[in-house]
């Protein structure tokens, strides 16, 4: 029997199952196949809380959503078209997000009385008519998998484990995905366990052929490749991109990277990634706590390395005193904060943007620190390089504010040419200078010399006590303290003229409303803006990458528009900074749910504001 093939421009699939069901792997594989096929992609993994919860329970549900299209897309999508639910918990936790008419593929084998009870289903939703609004595909995925693997010499448990590959095979058929990469992936992954390897491949192929033969799927779907800029691409998550960007910064500055870090969700993966790059001269030090981590990084910077520390909000709180010291001694230092939901421990695996004011003001005394925020997973790479450039050029600690959404989300990334990446000049002080002055500033940048131990004739002492301008000797002179306080501020403020001006996307230049965002909300905001424009609305968009100092043209830009909307996953922190500096009554839109914005909610907000115009 031949099946019909339907063309679609975009599809959003969510794989959901128990933490033990391998949904993240399934999602990663489907993503790889899809990338290879040439669609544009955006993904959103959703882990349960840190500890693995008992099998089959709601807290144990793990999911992976992926959005692919024949055009360039910006978000993992608001709500899925297709939900794969490997057990009752997965169904219950996710069905609410599936719009009516959506496809839901259900693994009926897991819908035992016991499993249903675990999540409080009185009867199986598959039979009790509660799913009539959806196109339900109720399939015994586990037993089909086991059956397909009869001839293998495997424990039942191992056979059952392959059910995620069966599901992957089925969906790969359903959307015409290329299968080779998955097969070779499985060959590599299980190279040491040939039987398991063959079984997984068999399960994968069984899923595919089941799709071809079953009545259940009358139609399969095609999503044409997107017309992306030509070039070499890879799929990359924010944490990986950030780690690689730091390696690139080391490479482009000729400085060895020294990471002092203490593990914390969702930043740990940067430590894990960087610890693989010793051959790049990257030294990673897992410290006893966050204070030691940044202390060691600062010590390394004093020694002429590119010192860096990675953490999340609670860790930044602990590092505050040492960041203040770095401000006082004026040495390059990178502080990466992968923001998560707060306050306190909050929701450690969920995203948020509520550490901006902490980065600005979270220290005693007047201690300004530049802040850079990436706007997409791949952009973490470039943000890291930019932050390093500022840190080294201006001899200052710099914050990189990423977030949990960027950290774990992924997107295709067109690889840059290394030669096109900026070069960073470390510009160490020359040896044997006559009466060397460690706090004599460069008149243009106001940066002080970086004189590293081992340099003859420049022996000097630095510290947290106020220092005399120039000589750097301890000074209790009132006028000097006032001067130094202003110089430290002026140095950071001056960076405003050394960064890209804020770019505004205002196609016809006649929009009256500007949407201004920062960090990980870029995708959702852009998607919302597109929707407005599709429907003929005129709205301008800009995204702030440098949060301290703001780009020099920020003020002009804001004044150009009647209304400025600032959507943030906090209670209005960027808005506070804008209002204080520019006295403009920006319109805040705030939701603090531990989740990224949906394009739809934002387009609604924008519409409301426009109509209230």
């Amino acid at each position, binding site marked *: 029997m031949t099946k019909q093939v339907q063309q679609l421009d975009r599809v959003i699939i969510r794989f959901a199952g128990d933490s033990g069901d391998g949904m993240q792997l399934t999602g990663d594989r489907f993503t790889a196949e899809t*990338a*290879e096929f*040439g669609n544009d992609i955006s993904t959103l993994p959703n882990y349960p809380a840190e500890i693995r919860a008992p099998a089959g329970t709601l807290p144990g549900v793990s999911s992976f959503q992926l959005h692919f299209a024949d055009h360039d897309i910006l978000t993992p999508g608001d709500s899925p078209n297709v939900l794969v639910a490997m057990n009752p918990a997965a169904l219950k936790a996710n069905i609410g997000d599936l719009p009516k008419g959506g496809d839901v593929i259900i693994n009926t084998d897991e819908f035992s009385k016991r499993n249903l009870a675990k999540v409080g289903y009185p009867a199986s939703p598959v039979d009790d008519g509660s799913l009539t609004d959806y196109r339900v595909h109720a399939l015994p995925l586990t037993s089909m998998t086991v059956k397909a693997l009869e001839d293998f010499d495997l424990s039942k448990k191992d056979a059952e484990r392959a059910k995620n590959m069966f599901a992957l095979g089925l969906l790969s058929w359903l959307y015409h995905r290329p299968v080779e*990469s998955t097969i070779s992936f499985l060959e590599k992954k299980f190279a040491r366990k040939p039987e398991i390897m063959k079984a997984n491949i068999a399960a994968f192929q069984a899923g595919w052929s089941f799709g071809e033969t079953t009545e259940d799927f009358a139609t399969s779907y095609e999503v044409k490749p997107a017309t992306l800029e*030509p*070039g*070499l*691409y*890879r799929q990359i998550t924010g944490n990986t991109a950030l780690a*690689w960007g730091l*390696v690139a910064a080391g*490479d482009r500055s000729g400085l*060895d990277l*020294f990471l*002092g870090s203490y593990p914390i969700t969702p930043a740990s993966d940067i430590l894990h990634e960087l610890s693989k*790059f*010793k*051959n*790049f*001269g*990257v*030294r990673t*030090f897992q*410290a*006893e*706590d966050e*204070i*030691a*981590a940044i*202390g*060691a*990084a*600062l*010590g*390394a*910077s*004093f*020694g*002429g*390395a590119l*010192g860096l520390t990675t953490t999340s909000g609670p860790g930044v709180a602990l590092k505050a*005193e*040492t960041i203040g*010291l770095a401000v006082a*001694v004026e040495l390059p230092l990178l502080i990466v904060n992968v923001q998560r939901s707060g306050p306190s421990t909050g929701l450690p695996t969920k995203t948020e943007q509520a550490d901006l004011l902490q980065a600005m003001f979270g220290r005693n005394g007047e201690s300004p620190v530049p802040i850079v925020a990436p706007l997409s997973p791949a952009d973490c790479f470039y943000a890291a390089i930019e932050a390093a450039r500022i840190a080294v050029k201006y001899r200052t600690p710099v914050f990189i504010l990423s977030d949990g959404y960027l950290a774990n989300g992924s997107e295709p990334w067109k*690889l840059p040419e*290394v030669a096109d990446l900026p070069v960073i000049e470390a510009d160490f002080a020359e040896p044997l200078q006559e009466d060397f002055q460690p706090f004599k500033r460069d008149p243009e940048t106001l940066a002080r010399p970086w004189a590293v*131990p*081992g*340099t*003859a*004739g*420049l*022996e*000097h*002492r*630095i*510290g*947290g*006590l106020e220092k005399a301008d120039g000589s750097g000797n301890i000074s209790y002179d009132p006028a000097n303290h006032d001067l130094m306080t202003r110089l430290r501020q002026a140095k950071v403020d001056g960076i405003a003229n050394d960064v890209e001006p804020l770019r505004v996307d205002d196609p016809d230049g006649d929009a009256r409303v500007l949407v201004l965002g920062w960090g990980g909300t870029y995708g959702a905001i852009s998607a919302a803006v597109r929707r407005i424009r599709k429907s003929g609305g005129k709205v301008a968009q800009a995204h702030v990458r440098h949060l301290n100092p703001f780009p020099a043209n920020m003020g002009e830009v804001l004044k150009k528009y009647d209304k400025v909307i600032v959507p943030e996953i906090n209670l209005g922190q960027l808005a506070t900074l804008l209002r204080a500096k520019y006295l403009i009554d920006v319109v805040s839109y705030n939701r603090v749910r531990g989740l990224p914005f949906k394009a739809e909610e934002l387009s609604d907000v924008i519409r409301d504001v426009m109509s209230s115009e």
Partner: protein
Amino acid sequence: MSDALALVPKSEIPLKAKDFKTDQEVRWCPGCGDYAILAAVQGFMPELGIRRENTVFISGIGCSSRFPYYMNTYGFHSIHGRAPAIATGLASARPDLSVWVVTGDGDSLSIGGNHLIHALRRNVNIKILMFNNRIYGLTKGQYSPTSEMGKVTKSSPMGSLDHPFNPISLAVGAEGAFVARTIDSDRQHLQSVLRQAAEHKGAALVEIYQNCNIFNDGAYEPLKDADQRDDVTVRLEHGQPIVFGKDRDKALIQEGFGFRVGTPDEAGVVVHDAHNPDPSQAFALSRLDQPAFTHVPIGVFRSVPRPSYDSLLNEQVEQAKDRQGRGDLTELLRSGDTWRID
């Protein structure tokens, strides 16, 4: 000098104590024990024969932590308690430096206690000079973690309630590979201990009994008073039987896992074994000072070789370069799953 400093460039010209003095006016109270320690260190440094510019002194906050300003080397007067952490980064990134930490009993055992014990267990290549005056000097005289129980201070008008740390016991319990004690008033002993510390490749803890004549004067009187000191002070020397007393008429005899004081001619006089991989004897010696000041061992309690943190770290870096080849950024970017769009 031992290979502990093998990686640190030697000075072409022989240096003198005065080469290590800065133009900064030394600011401690007249009579403070810190002066004697400063002089002893400045007098000792030339011995190492290394370049001044490859020497770094890092301190926390406290009277003692003013030390770096008076040493004409590179210096970092950091924040309270964090010097060992900062020094860990510097020493790990720069094996060509000789890194010294100067700290106080409060700086290293109160707020900095965690960094201290971790630096010791990792055997980071830093020499830690703990100026123990059993008081918070800079903040004008509150009791410290080494103050005796019942001490009356501004913050303990009815006497402190805290059972003090014994820095030697703590350091040995924290896997310290080099643990020693000396005293501000005995320059020769102080320098001999510094010498042995410098020869240890890794973390060396040197507790220096220091008199704060303003807020805790006479804390170490029994060790200084000409009449008692020789009967109280027990000088440890590796390989030597532990004999002491004005007339060298006293000796330590093992009793159970501890000691009793006997005479040199008795059987079972304990021979000091600082190199013993098992720290138990060193620990037992650290408990000798019970009740306080009956008998106080000074010298090197423990000195055992163990790979230093920086050497292990840099070995891995070299290994990685050998195995994977020097990192190539372009290669990295193109590694793994990629695809081309034309």
